[in-house]
């Protein structure tokens, strides 16, 4: 079994570690880097709870190997709010809209919406809802998530709430 030295920038901080070839990125982030905000809900790419931002793109942490993350820059849900605790607009919108209940799937949803809100193409209600097909929430019936998406796209992205 191969081992690999990797250097990954996570939430702006450089992490170096030696990982087994088979280690899944989600496990690396949760266990080695201690970023337990990332949740593994299905480990086969369907539920979306483990979604993170890798080099600006929303991807599943369960569908990448840790070794593949060498040299990348990763943002997890822990890295979104301002240091003073001010929530990211996506987090604030979900809170205002009662967009979560148990909160297990929520970090993945936050990351998808955050990735799309900062993408070069402007995020619209339609694009955000389409991207939500990649997330399963068992609690809310998606009502508050949809309200949050409407609130986020009702004003130009990037402008404070």
């Amino acid at each position, binding site marked *: *079994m*191969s081992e*690999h030295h990797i250097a990954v920038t996570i939430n702006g901080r450089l992490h170096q570690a030696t990982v*087994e*070839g*088979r280690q*899944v990125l989600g*496990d690396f982030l949760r266990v080695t880097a201690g970023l337990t905000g990332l949740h593994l809900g299905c*480990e*086969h*790419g369907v539920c*979306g709870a483990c*979604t993170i931002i890798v080099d600006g*793109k*929303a*991807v*599943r942490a*369960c*569908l*990448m*190997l840790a*070794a*593949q993350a060498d040299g990348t820059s990763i943002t997890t849900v822990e890295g979104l709010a301002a240091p003073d605790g001010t929530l990211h607009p996506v987090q604030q919108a979900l809170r205002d809209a009662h967009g979560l209940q148990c909160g297990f799937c929520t970090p993945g949803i936050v990351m*998808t919406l955050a990735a*799309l809100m900062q993408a070069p*193409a402007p995020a619209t209600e339609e694009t955000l809802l*389409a*991207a939500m*097909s*990649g997330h399963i929430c068992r609690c809310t019936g998606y009502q508050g998530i949809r309200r949050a998406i409407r609130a986020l796209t009702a004003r130009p992205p990037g402008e404070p709430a």
Partner: protein
Amino acid sequence: MKPAPFDYVAPTTIDAACALLAEAGGGALVLAGGQTLMPLLALRMSQPFIVVDINRIDALKGVTRVEGGTRIGPVTRQNDIITDTILAEALPGLVTATQHVGHHQTRDRGTVGGSIAFGEPAAELPAAAVALGATIEARSIRGTRRIAADALYLGPYATALEPDELVTAIHFPDWPAGTITLFREVARRPGDFALVGLIGAFAVTGGRIARVGIAWFGMGPTPIRARQAEAALRGQPAAGLDARGVAALAVADTAPFDDHHATAEYRRTVGERIFSRALAEASVLF
């Protein structure tokens, strides 16, 4: 659900990758986007000795115009296909098909080559490759060969690729200006594999259908080319098409099966309906 042990290698050149595959003697798997392979590894349904990650081979990425067609590097991400300006013009049908592959998050990582080489019978891109007449360029230390997409698929997840071969490009031929592409997919939820789907390209010149390619997905053990329907359409006047008759012929080539999500009967019935309707809707554009 954790992968079994394997050696991970990430070569940066095609030659290095081919050498690794040759050396592994069938014990290696190629990791492209990983959106299908990673679940199989996690479920231990796939237990390779070596995983050859081709994501660091820059030569396998990108879309370029070549003589008579478009060359797509296999490690081009699906979301990059959707936003590609060359493809928007040359292969709008491929772009539409790619929009239906998985979800935004899986398309950020998932690749064209990975999907085409894996050969899921209910997936969009293998059928698109068959319908649009793509050829797959495969390289090994033994050399390079080109395989027509409709000769690539042998059965569910079984392709004509040898274990030591790496897909190095997918070549899509140009279709004449004004080609109409139809894409229809019926899936349980957005992003799911198709219960039934089809992609068809129709080039009409001088009022006649000069060139046609139609392939089904979710309608049998492989993507299935609707050869009888293609033959019936080729050279025919585009006006006054018998959409129902063509659809019935197109379904005649399929071999759908019952599974948890739908019966074979459902797939045949709905396949014929969606094709017939799509053809009738499209024929006004011909």
